[in-house]
């Protein structure tokens, strides 16, 4: 029962955030210089008087602001995110079509950065704590510092330069070889090859974040009394790290990973742009180029929903894994 009320409160919170984004979108269109209908139509459609007039009635632009907001909200609830004049397709269809590619990329980058980040963080913390091979710790922390300062889009370009242009090992653009008509396993392998560079470059920045977090968290836990107790009762050094320290040090890292997802969604715009990856990030870039603001706002909304939904999942999973956390607790405080 307690879990149910916790779940309900979290869902309510998530819905409030989504509502907030919708309201922001609504006011953004009105913040823009010029006629909102013309803004929505974008440069491409502004010349078409009939289209602008249709937009005006669709959004009730001749009615009071609150009525307009209600109209806009009703549209969103009915999954009507507008019509992309440029592509002659409803915005939602365009986005849904691109979602799988983004999911694939973000999932791979997330797993890559989390696994490697935690691993390197543990190695660095161990080296520092045992005071043996301190250079490992220095190398890992300086590497993380360096990656943390590298612009994501530039790292992607350098990846293309090195691995596609100079070495010729990996494909530079797209998700599949154009016109290859591969099926089954061959196609999966082809996609996997295209996936390597975007995953690694998108994951690198976040890996740096997780390295620093894991290391700090490990060093904090490693000095605690229960670790000394475990050692005193004769638990082996490897097991102390794995079963006692890491298990407790990982909790803040995982919450933070959930919170970081919003940033990764933003990073995906840059990575997908560089690699011409056919996801919603690239779609956002195209919408920018075409000044297709309905599409742009639709992507912003969908990205926010994705992030909120994922945060909800991590919150609930976290609660199931660690019953010490009370509903409405302040796990997010580390951010």
């Amino acid at each position, binding site marked *: 029962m307690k879990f149910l009320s916790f779940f309900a409160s979290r869902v309510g919170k998530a819905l409030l955030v989504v509502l907030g984004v919708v309201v922001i979108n609504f006011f953004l269109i009105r913040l*823009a210089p010029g006629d909102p209908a013309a803004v929505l139509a974008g440069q491409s459609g502004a010349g078409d008087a009939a289209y602008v007039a249709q937009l005006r009635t669709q959004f009730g632009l001749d009615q009071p602001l609150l009525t307009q907001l209600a109209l806009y909200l009703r549209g969103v609830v009915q999954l009507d995110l507008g019509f992309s004049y440029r592509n002659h397709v409803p915005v939602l269809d365009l986005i849904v079509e691109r979602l799988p590619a983004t999911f694939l990329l973000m999932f791979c980058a997330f797993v890559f950065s989390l696994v490697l980040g935690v691993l390197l963080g543990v190695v660095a913390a161990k080296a520092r704590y045992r005071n043996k091979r301190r250079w490992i710790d220095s190398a890992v922390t300086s590497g993380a*510092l360096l990656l943390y300062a590298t612009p994501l889009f*530039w790292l992607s370009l350098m990846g293309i330069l090195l691995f596609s242009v100079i070495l010729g090992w990996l494909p530079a653009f797209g998700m599949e070889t154009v016109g290859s008509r591969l099926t089954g396993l061959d196609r999966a392998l082809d996609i996997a090859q295209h996936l390597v560079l975007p995953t690694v470059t998108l994951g690198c920045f976040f890996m740096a974040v997780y390295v620093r977090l894991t290391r700090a968290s490990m060093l904090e836990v490693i000095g605690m009394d229960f670790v000394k107790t475990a050692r005193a009762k004769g638990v082996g050094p490897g097991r102390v790290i794995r079963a006692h320290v890491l298990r407790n040090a990982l909790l803040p890292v995982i919450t933070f990973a959930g919170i970081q997802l919003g940033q990764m969604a*933003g990073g995906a715009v840059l990575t997908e742009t560089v690699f011409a990856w056919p996801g919603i990030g690239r779609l*956002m870039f195209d919408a*920018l180029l075409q000044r297709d*603001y309905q599409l742009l706002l639709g992507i912003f909304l969908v990205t926010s929903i994705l992030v909120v939904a994922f945060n909800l999942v991590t919150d609930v999973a976290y609660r199931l894994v660690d019953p010490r956390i009370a509903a409405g607790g302040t796990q997010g405080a580390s951010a």
Partner: protein
Amino acid sequence: MKAFLRRYMRNPGAVAGLVIVALVAAAALLAPLLYEESPWMMVAAPLIPPFSDPAYPFGTDMLGRDITAGLVWGARVSLLVGLLSTGVALLFGILVGAVAGYCGGRIDDALMRFTEFFQTIPQLAMAVVLVAILGPSLYSIMGAIAVVSWPPAARLVRSEFMTLKQREFVQAAIVIGQTPGRIVCTQILPNAMSPIIVSASFMVATAILTESSLSFLGLGDRNQMSWGFMIGAARTMIRDAWWMSVWPGVAILLTVLAINLIGEGLSDALNPQLRRRGE
């Protein structure tokens, strides 16, 4: 102050960071003197490779623009946007955090919900949408960066205020009847300054990265040469002219790294106890 300087100077990384930032700042300030012509001007043959012509040490781009001039002028935009947008974000963050931390209760609750909202939504996507719709200019870029970067500052200030509020000297100020505004400005805020300064330096670094991402996506100010724009323009030339994208990227990397190093140096120098405890 002297002890602070001594502690700061003991950290080689922090000193190196300071030197790099000083060089970048000098380039930014002297840009109009070093390169009188606009960095948008075509001054030489297109695609001169780097280190081949001493007049254009970093080469030229596909339109014959001097990349060195672009780098020097780009430093202006990066530093200006980084500093000003952080300033705005910090002011707003301090305001929200101070009110939430000092007042507590329902006001705190409402303000923290508000902060959490801005922390949850994807920041870069929000900045992109803001700049695209308001029209790309230095002001909209700085505004958008400020909008997405104030929440951590607000949280930090709030937690500092909540602990400082309990301390005896603040309680004493309340007892002798100082007004809340005076207590906040003269008692609490000065004592919360060191963590705020440290996080401000990291915010500048992030702001520079965000600005470069926005200009890379073509959302930079059309009248200002910036490092992100240079990389964005070089994207399609990666096969023929590697130098076009390499140098501006190195410039961003070095500047952001240097500012992060300064931040870490400040953090160690301002919190010597923390350092001795072994982090």
